[in-house]
Structures are given as C-alpha cells and as structure tokens.
C-alpha cells in the first residue's frame, strides 16, 4: 500500500533522529566505567554523580547534534582525561586528603587542569572555526570530565582544575590564532 510521501518523510526523519540519539547514547555510555570508578573512590558520591551525569548528558547532546558540536567531543574528552585521572590515581595511591587540609590537593588539581588545558589548546578547533562552537563544546566537556576527578577533593579541587584548564589553554590557543 502506498503511503503519502509527506507521512513517509516524517517517519524517515523520526527514524534518523532516533538513530542518531541511539548512537550518541551508546557512545557516551562508554564513559560509565570511569564515572563509576570515581564514585567508588569518593566519600561523597552525590557531587561526583551530578558531574558524571552532566558529562554524559553533554557528550550525548554534542554527538546527537553533530557537526560543530560533535567535533568538540573527542578533543574535550582527551583534554579532560588528565584532570580526571590524576586525582583518581592519587586517591588510589592512598593519598587521602580532604580539601583544605593539605596543599597537595589544590596543586594536583591545578597542575592536572593546566596539563588538560594545554591538551585542549592543542587539540581543540580554533576559536574562529564554526563560530567557536567546537571550542566551546570541547571546553565544556573537558571541564566536566575534569570535574568528575577533581570533585573528589571538593570545590577547591574543582576551582583549581578550572583555573589550570584556563591557564593552560589560553596561551596555546592565542598562539594558534596568531599562526
């Protein structure tokens, strides 16, 4: 039986969007083990859970949306892996240190953030590409990924990571803009 083309086009569009969403969710769920590890290491899982869910939501949205948004996902995750992994490694290595009680924590998060920022500056698309959307999505994802690790040490850890990320990325991006 022949279906009017308009109805079929709408069904095809819905199938396309559903397929994109399914693919995006499938790929973002690959981050679950890392978020689960951070939850396991943390004495206050609520904040890690929130940042983890925000990270999954951001990655899913950018992958689903595609184009300029999607191009920021890989550089963002690669840049965010450093500030995510180092606090987890420190925690796993037995250095249990609550925020405010030792100087190591903010230092670790600042340095990890700076390393992530340099990676972001090198890997992310330049600010003038696609009206800066890929850079914004990469920065957001890097920040959220880093927050999953650095929130282990509370808001000081988060703040230190963000400062480091900005400090690391800004000069590298500025240098790339000039070239």
């Amino acid at each position, binding site marked *: *039986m022949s279906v009017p083309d308009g109805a079929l086009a709408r069904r*095809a569009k819905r199938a396309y969007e559903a397929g994109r969403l399914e693919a995006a969710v499938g790929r973002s769920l690959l981050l679950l083990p890392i978020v689960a590890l951070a939850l396991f290491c943390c004495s206050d899982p609520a904040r890690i859970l929130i940042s983890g869910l925000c990270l999954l939501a951001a990655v899913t949205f950018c992958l689903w949306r595609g184009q300029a948004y999607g191009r920021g996902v890989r550089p963002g995750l690669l840049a965010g892996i450093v500030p995510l992994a180092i606090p987890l490694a420190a925690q796993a290595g037995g250095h249990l240190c609550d925020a405010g009680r030792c100087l190591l924590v903010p230092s670790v998060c600042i340095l990890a953030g700076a390393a992530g920022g340099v990676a972001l500056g090198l890997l992310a698309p330049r600010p003038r590409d696609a009206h800066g959307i890929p850079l914004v999505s990469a920065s957001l994802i890097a920040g959220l990924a880093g927050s999953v690790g650095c929130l282990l040490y509370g808001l000081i850890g988060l703040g230190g990571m963000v400062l480091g990320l900005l400090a690391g990325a800004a000069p590298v991006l500025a240098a790339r803009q000039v070239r």
Partner: protein
Amino acid sequence: MERLPPPDLQRLMERLADGDREAFRPLFESLWPFLRRFTSRHLRPEECEDAAQEALLKIFRRAAEFEPSRPALAWALGIAAFEIRTARRRRQRRREEPPPEDAFESQRHPDPTPEEAALTRDLEAMLREALGALRPEDAETLRLFARGERAAVAAATFRKRVERALRRLRAVWRTTDERP
C-alpha cells in the same frame, strides 16, 4: 531508467552522517524513488512498496553510523537487498502462492467410484457450510486468497486477516466434523 548520480548520494549521506539536517530532504527525495524502482525489479507489486519503505527507514535510522570511506550507493543497496530477501523468505514461509486453479481438479481420479463421488460431495458441502459459518469478511478474505488476489489493504494487514480467517475456519471445521 532514471539513475541516482552516485556523487550526490555520497555527499548527501556524508553530510547527513555528520548531522547536517539540511541534507535530509534532498536525500529523501532522491533515495525514495530509487529504492522503489530497485525493489520493484525483484519483488511483486504488493511487496515492493513495503520492502522499499523498510529499507528507507533502516537507511535513515543507521545514517549516523555511515562511514564516509564507504560507497554510499553500495551501502544503501545492501540494506535494500536485505529487505528484498526478507520479503521473499516471508513469502516462502507463508506459501502465499495459491495453488493453480485446477490443482485439486487434476488430482481427482478421472473416473471416481460412486463412493468417492459421494465423499467428495460431502466434503464440498462441509466446506461450504464451514465457510458459511464464518463472518462475511473472513469468508471474503479466504475467497480472495484462494483466487490469488488481495484486498485493498497493506500486505501485512491482509496476511493477518488470512491467518485469522484460516484459524476460525479450522475451528468451525472441527466442530462440523465432530457432529454426529
């Protein structure tokens, strides 16, 4: 035969895979007639439309997975070919081909004995009675099916009607057969 230019299809699929929604409409408008023609060459008229629709929906559902390094035309045709094979297998399972009109006639003994003739008359009477006991729409469905025709509905809908009508016919037949 109007052909879909491969370069357009490739470019449109790549854009759609990347998330460019502007590519949807031109791709739909060039792919849909192409798929209909392709399936019509391999399936019956009542099957080709459904298969083409299934292939189209599957292509768009999997568009996000499309790799730009692959030839888009071959990828799309692969999906369409799968739907064609599925439709053929479904047809074979259902054995939708009705028997030839004289199939039963030719199996009859050319010179039946009086007992065989009486038995045949009784069976035909029972079948007529069973058909008469069905609802009119079930009886009509079976008559169309026996003639190799189909009601003006989708193939899947007609298939379900046939299955339902046969089930009811069997139930009625059992009741008729068990009467003293």
